[in-house]
């Protein structure tokens, strides 16, 4: 009974950690540019595919992850520079379509480069399950949760302790004011895309041994990440992390106790229920609109 519950919680936290990273990516980009980047899931895919295919051709794992991460960051910056920045003043829905166009484009390129089949990446430290209070856990789950936790702490330090991070925060609060005190807001937007791409790609690499890598892996992961970000309140970093974990755990519980066929629906049912009562998410600002 308890072991079963613990089992679901553990698998929920594992996948929730990836949603949290993706959600954090959505929030960082949203704060810098007020854009919802629907290509966020493709960064996860790039990370997963690059590390799986590179290690298969003999590149050491850490280097493979690094290359995947660098590649995703470059792609992120290019998307920001050539698509999003140019359409600065376009409407919300236009910007959404631009990032969706980018995600279709990236999936097309990925299919061309890597093919359509599933790629396998070996678990980082073996597959012997760890027994824990009656539940068993793949060692890779620890890698996922640990990496996500480290990244989240690093992001928090980055935003609170470094000048670049503070400049990005300032831009999210007031773009014009930030510009007036000499912050290059265009570079902030580029940096935010690079940062969210890095988060996605590393997340994709550590989760690849569990989910396999394929060119469409980013679609649902990205949408769930968006759900996490909205659940926590768009632009609210800790909220996105909490949102990701909530979505992951709820999904695992739903799959375990209710119906595994409806696993993917759980996240969206939750978000609809929450938005009915809290139109700005769990931790979002309840500010009034200035007319």
């Amino acid at each position, binding site marked *: 009974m308890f072991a079963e519950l613990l089992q679901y919680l553990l698998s929920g936290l594992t996948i929730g950690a990836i949603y949290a990273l993706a959600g954090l990516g959505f929030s960082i980009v949203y704060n810098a540019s007020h854009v919802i980047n629907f290509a966020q899931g493709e960064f996860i895919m790039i990370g997963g595919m690059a590390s799986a295919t590179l290690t298969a051709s003999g590149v050491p794992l850490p280097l493979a992850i690094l290359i995947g991460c660098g590649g995703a960051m470059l792609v992120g910056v290019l998307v920001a520079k050539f698509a999003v920045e140019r*359409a600065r003043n376009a409407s919300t829905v236009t910007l959404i379509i631009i990032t969706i166009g980018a995600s279709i484009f990236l999936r097309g390129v990925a299919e061309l480069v890597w093919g359509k089949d599933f790629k396998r990446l070996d678990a980082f430290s073996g597959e012997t399950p760890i027994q824990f209070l009656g539940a068993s856990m793949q060692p890779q789950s620890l890698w996922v949760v640990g990496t996500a936790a480290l990244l989240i702490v690093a992001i928090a330090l980055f935003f609170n302790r470094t000048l670049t991070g503070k400049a990005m925060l300032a831009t999210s609060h007031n773009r014009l004011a930030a510009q007036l005190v000499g912050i290059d807001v265009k570079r902030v937007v580029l940096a935010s895309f690079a940062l969210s791409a890095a988060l996605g790609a590393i997340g994709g690499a550590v989760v690849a041994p569990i989910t396999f890598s394929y060119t469409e892996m980013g679609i649902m992961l990205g949408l769930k990440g968006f759900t996490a970000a909205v659940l926590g309140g768009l632009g609210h970093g800790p909220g996105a992390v909490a949102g990701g974990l909530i979505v992951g755990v709820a999904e695992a519980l739903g799959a375990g106790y209710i119906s595994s066929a409806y696993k993917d629906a759980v996240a969206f*049912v939750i978000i609809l229920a929450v938005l009915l009562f809290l139109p700005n998410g769990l931790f979002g600002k309840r500010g009034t609109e200035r007319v």
Partner: protein
Amino acid sequence: MPSLFQTILHGRLTGLLVLGAVIAVLPLFLPNNFYLDIAILAGFNAVVCVGLNLLIGYAGQISLGHAGFFGIGAYASGVLAGNYGWPPVLALLAGAVFVGLLAFAVAKPILRLKGHYLAMATLGIGIIVSIVLRTESGLTGGPDGMTVEPFRIFGFELYGEKTWYWVVGALLVAVVWLSLNLIDSPMGRALRAVHGSEVAAEVVGVDTARFKAAVFVLSAVFASVAGSLFAHYAGLITPAKADFFKSIELVTMVVFGGMASTFGAVVGAVVLTLLPQALTVFQDYQQIVLGAILMATMVFMPKGLLPTLAALLPARRRA
């Protein structure tokens, strides 16, 4: 004299006549049923897009879940007319009424949301619908989809591309006529006020919640009716017709053609239905080209195709 192009854009009746004329002569230029089939698909998409454009372009609300309504309509016809032997017309109406009620029930709480939150909520509804259609395989045939009975009315059976072409053409003209009238009605003015500034609209006494809900319901019902007829025409429906990508495709058609332009929505639907067919020559590069075209159009023509082209013509202020 306004140019023909501007008349199409701004004149209510002339535009409708031009549309009707194009639909009437088009079959003469389509060599075989393959092209007729594409024209029919474009017509179905156009019907949904004209409704969706009322919501996105005029009321300024996003929906990333309209394929869900299309799918409910399609499956209502498939299930009720097929499994339960209802007359197709009744099945279509039942689907439309159900979608209308569903849209009405979710409209008030959902349309309170703004921007990205609204996008999230409508996206969620669409995804839930497509997962239900995929999972309840006892009724819907699951991921493989289900076959649908032909459409029969008063003993006639609608059969073949030629017949369906005229049905869809007539439906499109009717839907365009309806929405053009709506836009020029007090409700249309109220909607545009909501788009401009919701608060300002409220201050001058527009019941914004009611109007937004009404147009949401209307656009959902358009999608449902199109879905029902599409199901009968195609004879086979799959949950893919209701999924996230179909929703995105519909929104893209509206924005690509030009938001807040009824004929823009029609043009967008036609162009983006043709595009994947044309892109098959690129084979493996198809997705790349499609993604690049979407990005480029939106970056360089953020207002969409028709309004951008219209702006290039010698300026004549709209009446």
